[in-house]
């Protein structure tokens, strides 16, 4: 029994979500191998070989993998799939894009967003926006899984010494091509990996106010900034900051929700945070039902005051 983890990387380094996925893979039992498929991704493969608990790194290099197109990535995974009992992806935009494609080609069910490994074939996963946890058992010979990174501790990024093997790259499918990207520039910690997250909602009122009020607090705490769907839809914050069922799932040490009412869909993305602080004018807001510390106050005075007091 061996598990294959599909690494998420930027060709130079392995992204954090891969480390949590390695932990989940180890919990499935057996050896853990990591696939680094990319373009000039030698550095990323080297980094993957140092992850504690990884026994082999498979490096496939081709221009076809430069942008992680699902068609090409899935073909590469399928070429290697034969020798693995478990194939795991981080439940990121990239992992969610590729994993079901691999599963369907193998004619197996895919198990999404697992938060716990109960045994080699039994897993826990949240359903209904996290309002229920399902324990599911797979009857398939191969398990294709995406891993909710907040459900597993990250494996140590150093201390391992896996051999790096080169695999032949599969051909470009020719069915899709990369046109361009707009990646938001961000000096802050990554939202999904941050220890502290400060999130703003619709009550901020405008993009200017959002930046004016939330940024100093985030700077003071070294926190990542998040937002509710209402704030994103209103254009106060870019959509990759959205926390919730359809956005990012976070579980930081401290989550500060300012001007967020706490709809089911938002709670789905943050209720596993260790400590939740809610600042809201409306003392009836549902967010207070999950907050460890609630402050009923106008955020435009309370948040700057909090920034000052830190």
């Amino acid at each position, binding site marked *: 029994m061996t598990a294959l983890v599909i690494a998420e990387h930027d060709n130079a380094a392995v992204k954090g979500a891969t480390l949590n996925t390695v932990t989940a893979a180890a919990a499935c039992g057996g050896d853990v191998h990591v696939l680094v498929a990319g373009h000039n991704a030698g550095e990323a493969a080297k980094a993957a070989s140092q992850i504690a608990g990884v026994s082999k790194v498979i490096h496939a290099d081709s221009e076809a993998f430069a942008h992680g197109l*699902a068609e090409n990535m899935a073909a590469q995974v399928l070429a290697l799939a034969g020798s693995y009992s478990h194939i795991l992806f981080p439940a990121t*935009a*990239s992992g*969610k*894009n590729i994993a*079901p*494609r691999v*599963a*369907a*080609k193998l004619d*197996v*069910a*895919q*198990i*999404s*967003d697992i938060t716990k490994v109960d045994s080699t074939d039994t897993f826990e996963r*949240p*359903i*209904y*926006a996290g*309002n*229920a*946890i*399902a*324990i*599911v*058992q797979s*009857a*398939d010979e191969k398990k294709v899984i995406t891993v909710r990174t907040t459900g597993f501790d990250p494996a140590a990024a150093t201390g391992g010494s896996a051999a790096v093997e080169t695999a032949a790259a599969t051909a470009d499918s020719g*069915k*899709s*091509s*990369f*046109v*361009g*990207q*707009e*990646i*938001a520039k*961000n000096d802050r910690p990554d939202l999904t990996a941050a220890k*502290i997250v400060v999130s703003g909602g619709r009550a901020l009122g405008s993009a200017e106010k959002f930046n004016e009020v939330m940024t100093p607090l985030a700077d003071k705490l070294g926190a990542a900034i998040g937002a509710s769907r209402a704030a994103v839809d209103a254009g106060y914050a870019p*959509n*990759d900051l959205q926390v919730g*069922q*359809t956005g990012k799932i976070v579980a930081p040490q*401290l989550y500060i929700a300012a001007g967020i009412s706490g709809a*089911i869909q938002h709670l789905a993305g943050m*209720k596993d945070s260790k400590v939740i*602080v809610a600042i809201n004018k409306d003392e009836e807001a549902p967010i*207070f039902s*999950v*907050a*460890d*510390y*609630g*402050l009923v*106050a106008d955020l435009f005075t*309370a948040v700057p005051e*909090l920034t000052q*007091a830190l």
Partner: protein
Amino acid sequence: MKALVAVKRVVDYNVKVRVKSDQTGVDIANVKMSMNPFDEIAVEEAVRLKEKGVVTEIVAISCGDAKCQETLRTAMAIGADRGILVETTEELQPLAVAKLLKALVDKEQPQLIILGKQAIDDDANQTGQMLAALADLPQATFASKVEIEGGKAKVTREVDGGLETLAVSLPAVVTTDLRLNEPRYVTLPNIMKAKKKQLEVVKPEDLGVDVKPRLKTLKVMEPPKRGAGIKVPDVATLVDKLKNEAKVI
């Protein structure tokens, strides 16, 4: 070109579901059901493409029990031309739905297949990708913008960290993200008109698809409850609690 849209009947997104006391599932008897929000966006996008003259016919498909007819009628009220219900009382998992859709894609030969990125009940986010794999078509998931030009779809996708644009050759599978569009409200005259549109009912056996579930749900549990929190009177107390009680800053 013909567009095919898949819609799912799910518990309304405003309903807070409860886990059954025997832990066999969530209690969905007598709760409000609606079209999955992402699927509304998918139907709306198909209708907009039709209004632009890109799409000529929209076929809405739903898989499930007889009540899914309501969901198809809603899709037709938004603007779908006809509906197909794959009727079964069996629990349908994404792989089974993808196979049913694949069979209908083979039959209908659409140029564009639009699905929601995920259903808000099972939160799987798989069906579109699985359909693309089975039909050997390119996929453009989590779309926030779709442009059809010269036999290709140029799709902007929401990815971690920002946006990415892909060009996929048609036919292709596109799954919708929240910001693709804002679905229109259905009007009463359109609801009346939708009742006259054609709705075909087929069975999984007619399509030669085995829909047996592959994943067995052993148990459904309540998520762990959070301990009751406290309200603090002012910012100073909050800072003190965070520093000395919770020790998180």
